[in-house]
């Protein structure tokens, strides 16, 4: 660490931006462009995206309804 600080000290320019790019050689170049920064596949044909999309949000929307039903069933209300 000390040697790295010593190496850096004489530099006058602020070129630390390069470090991020050089890391690409380790982790690979990240994709850029439309759809590259979305963590799920949209244009896939394996599973229809509509099913994934509405299914996910539908599950979270339905969760309180399931909870309420479960509580009422447990308490003997229904």
């Amino acid at each position, binding site marked *: 660490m000390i040697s790295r600080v010593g190496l850096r000290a004489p530099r006058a320019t*602020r070129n630390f*931006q390069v470090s*991020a*790019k050089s890391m*690409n050689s380790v*982790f*690979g*170049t*990240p*994709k*850029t*462009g*439309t759809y*590259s*920064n*979305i*963590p799920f596949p*949209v*244009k896939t044909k394996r599973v229809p*995206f*509509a099913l994934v*999309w*509405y299914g*996910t*949000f539908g599950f*979270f*929307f*339905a*969760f*309180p*309804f399931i*909870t*309420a039903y*479960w*509580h*009422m069933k447990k*308490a003997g*209300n*229904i």
Partner: protein
Amino acid sequence: MSYMNRWFLSTSHKDIATLYLGYGFMSAMVATGMSVIIRLELSGAGPQYLHGNNQVFNVLVTGHAMAMMFLFVMPVLIGAFGKFFVPIMMGAVDMAFARLNNISFWCLPPALVCIMASLLMENGAGTGWTVYPPLSSINSHSGPSVDLAMFALHLTTISSLLGAINFMVTVLNMRTMGMHLVHMPLFVWAMYFTAMLLLLSLPVLTAGVTLLLMDRNFNTGFFEVAAGGDPVTYQHLFWFFGHPEVYIIIIPGFGIISHIVSTYSKKPMFGHVGMLYAMGSIGLLGFLVWSHHMFVVGLDIDSRAYFTSATMVIAVPTGIKMFSWLATMYGGEVRLTVPMLFALGFLFLFTMGGLTGVMTSNASIDVAFHDTYYVVGHFHYVLSMGALFSLMGGYFYWSKSMYNLSYCVIKGRMLFWLLFNAVNGMFLPMHFLGLNGMPRRMSDYPDSFEPWNVMSSLFSMMSMFTVMLFLNMVYEQLTGNFQFKTKKVNENDNTPDFMASNLLGLNNSDIEFVLPSPANYHTYNELPMLYAKEMSNEEVK
């Protein structure tokens, strides 16, 4: 770069912001589901759908508030928009602590799991989001539900504190050359003030909740009257956090609205410096007014006089902001785009909520209003319409820049008008119910309250349809299949591009629209040089 590295071990502020956005929308669905059940149960006098199981009603009220605030609005406004645009607007390569940024996000999914588990376990946490003892004590809620809900609060607190530290260091240390503090875009200032509020208020909540956990699990008696404790101490600790929390939610919205109003009025923000001082004043005053939430616990008259006066003072910087937004639009070339519609809706509805806030700030009037639906109506006007409208406006303003995916403008306008009518129809009657004395957090009411409740519930169903419309819009945005593709729509109404927003030549704002859409993984190859118009060429060089 593997999927694991990019999305689970991410150090990119833009990718982490995307995760926040998706997470926020999922949490929003849980919270919306709860609100729908609450309004269904209140759609008529007597037991409707919950078969007289009032604990379930209380559990849903608690979960709705916690999920909306801690798991939806804060992650989206601060986590998604803040973490995406603060580094970009300042010309920074990323957040100051990139890995801390990742940890901030990954504290949140367990919080959602804890909230969902607390709903299911034993009788659920029917304490309200305030978790007041003695209702939240071991005698009244003996199961693990309350503990889980508190653990969820702890997790969101850790997430928010790490995020706040990150924001503050980023803003103070990573501004690019030529970007002075006072010239920072108002959204960056908003996030900075929000981070300060988070940093100062959240530890107090953590202290209060931890003491409560110890009372529940380790036989301490901080808030147990029988052990010499005082439950009012908890209320002071809670509201010392709880009131700044209101501003934590709304100040990022202020920043977003400033950008939208300025862009679509084609004018720089009126009173840029005044706006940031107003935000700072609101943040500071937010720490000095907490006891207006507990006027009826038996405060002495001097304290009530002070907290009434201090609360009313907040109307001054809020008024400065409102008039500055109006002055920005005055004489400008106002374009009624979808984000601008949401911004205008925000201005009207937040003012309405602010006015009812002045009413409730008065200690003597609050004796009548306390714990009634008037308060529920008031804070939904401020939050459900203030924070939500700014959030929606922000999404439509920036989603093209974030993902290079256009949305259907016609559906966007439909969404605004449906939501505007739905929230007004849902929350305006609550004021009348409150004035007539209907208590909040009750699953039943006398017949005389039925008409306004029916109206509120009907408009709640309408708001549910707007949520479905929004999901459909985002689905179409992602897939590119517009239902109204053939209709003639001016693309400039949709995209707040560089040419439309004329700020770049005037100050350091709107750099996000100059970048490629979506921005490159490494946003800047070289640090951008930003400068204000008043700087001379020599200064720029």
